């Protein structure tokens, strides 16, 4: 199993973002997904900036993937999407069906293009759906976050994987970080600040991990990240390596957070290489300055907010 650094879901100032990726370049993850998934108004980092950053990470030995936006509503967003999908220097991760159409057409026109990635917001809930998407030119899928690992294994079983154009489809799951649970046309960060979406003053830049939403009795529940709603708790599948292997998972997606992330990546790598047991890694994760508690209910076919239990 390999490690993938998922796309940065928040809007960090340029200096913080560059520091973060400099650290990623030094770290053990094999793949890095770049791009702005959440909001086209976050315009500090543009297409050319992502490509330039991608080249630096490639020089550092990383496989780089560029992700398209998850919710596409305007013509301007479609233009950005086409530009990203038409380049072939880096593989593309599809965020919605708009990207699927453009990528499938590009693959049909040029069979030598590299396969693309089906992002976690493409709804693939069964084998037939994965077969449909594999035929378009995908090489890799990221399971929807609410899918249990038994379902992931049933969709793309290691003994009988779905075949894409260049061999078996590889499976990735969302293994660490605040879970991207929903998208809306409305910006909840702007709403919280009593601002309109078009006059949002880019206030989401103030929150490195989103805005915490709690129940009125103080239970952390969700995190508001612009138009995206996330879990307040962090998904953490570090104790699930056995079930992940049985499900045929070939890479784990670790989603960036504001503090402690470099150590998170090291701990996952240590568990995968068996230089550290999951119990010790979990104990250390619980001591890190992370923005929430650790949960793994989705993996076990439970409510997603159920906390990680100590391994036996």
């Amino acid at each position, binding site marked *: 199993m390999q490690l993938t650094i998922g796309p940065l879901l928040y809007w960090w100032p340029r200096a913080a973002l560059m520091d973060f990726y400099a650290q990623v370049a030094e770290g053990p993850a094999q793949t890095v997904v770049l791009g702005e998934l959440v909001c086209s108004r976050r315009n500090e980092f543009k297409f050319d900036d992502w490509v330039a950053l991608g080249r630096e990470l490639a020089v550092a030995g990383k496989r780089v993937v560029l992700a398209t936006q998850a*919710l*596409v*509503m*305007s013509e301007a*967003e*479609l233009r950005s*999407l086409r530009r990203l999908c038409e380049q072939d220097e880096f593989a593309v991760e599809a965020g*919605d*069906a*708009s990207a*699927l*159409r*453009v990528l499938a057409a590009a693959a049909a026109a040029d069979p030598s293009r590299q396969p693309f990635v089906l992002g976690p917001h493409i*709804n*693939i*809930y*069964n*084998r*037939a*759906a994965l*077969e*449909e*998407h594999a035929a378009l030119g995908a090489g890799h899928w990221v399971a*929807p*976050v*609410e899918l249990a690992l038994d*379902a992931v294994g*049933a*969709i793309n079983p290691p003994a009988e994987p779905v075949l894409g154009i260049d061999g078996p489809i590889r499976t990735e799951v969302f293994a660490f970080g605040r*879970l991207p*649970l*929903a*998208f*809306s*046309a*409305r*910006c*909840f960060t*702007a*709403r*919280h600040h009593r601002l309109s*979406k*078009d006059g949002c003053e880019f206030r989401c830049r103030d929150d490195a991990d989103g805005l*915490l*939403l*709690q*129940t*009125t009795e*103080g*239970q952390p529940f*969700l995190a*508001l990240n612009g138009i995206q*709603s996330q*879990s307040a708790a962090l998904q953490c599948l570090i104790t699930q390596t056995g079930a992940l292997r049985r499900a045929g998972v070939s890479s784990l997606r670790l989603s960036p957070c504001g503090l402690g992330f470099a150590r998170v990546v090291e701990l996952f790598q240590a568990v995968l290489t068996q230089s550290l047991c999951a119990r010790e890694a979990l104990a250390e994760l619980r001591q890190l300055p992370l923005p929430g508690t650790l949960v793994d*209910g*989705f993996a076990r076919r*439970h*409510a*997603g*907010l159920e906390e990680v239990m100590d391994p036996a």
Partner: protein
Amino acid sequence: MAVVKPQLVCPAGSLRALTLAVEAGADAVYLGLKDATNARNFAGLNFDDAQVAEGVRFAHARGAEVLMALNTYADARDPLPWRRAVDRAARLGADALIVADSGVLAYARDHHPQLRLHLSVQASATSYEAIEYYRERYGIQRAVLPRVLTLQQVEQVIRHTSVPLEVFGFGSLCVMVEGRCALSSYATGQSPNTAGVCSPPSAVRWHETAEGVEARLNGVLIDRYGPAEPRGYPTLCKGRFDVAGTPADYALEEPTSLNTLALLPQLIEAGVAAIKIEGRQRSPSYVQGVTQVWRAAIDSAWADAQGSGRYSVQPQWSNELGRWAEGQQHTLGAYDRPWR
């Protein structure tokens, strides 16, 4: 896209609701089977085969269509019920299937090529590129747009696709993009995509406390109502929460209903092919009352578009819809968003 008189598509959670909808002037009714294959999978709701057959007979005799909602995602462990549901829809004479799952779309395309396919709102196709993707691969003949686009964005989609579009006109409002919301499964383990339910009744608990009545969803406090406050159903995204220290407010969405009566002329002008009323889980009287209003409104707006008469929202229409609105409030939703 030519301007057409939009079809009025009404919900039927039961044979009684179907009958009343057709008699009240629905051009089409949509219904689901009694299982997890549709997104209103509630106890006591929906149709068995005999009821579908009877509903189809009743509707067809009066010139109305029956659309079958097969709009959840097939379970990886056992996708068979979804395939069988496609077979059943074809056998029972449904006029079209409303589908979200590409695996189910592929099955319908390959095994029942004569069956008309509509792309469900749960497929989250928000751009013309996305809709064209489904047309090219599955031959969809209609797409239902998620409730997130502005009127201008709806017009833009219509200009760039040959697929006729259906939009929501009235009913309970999803503030999240349909088909891309895992909030309910995060809290309860069951979601619209996986189980055909959102904030399922089995997870709801009410508690009387000194501070008021609490509504909890699998233990998570969604709302607390004062003694004089009307209580709503604790749909997760419509609860009151604290955000970053700001005390209890509707952080995501207020409990309001979508109502686009005021926009009907613009929707027709834009070339919308069908208008959908939400609410298969609502009572037959809701279906009857709301259908009557929308029948009259569409007829009037269409006459206006043809140059005879002038359309305006009648007070009695608003009063009738107001009876059925969630939280007794109306909004134009994303079509005309003051929050944009």
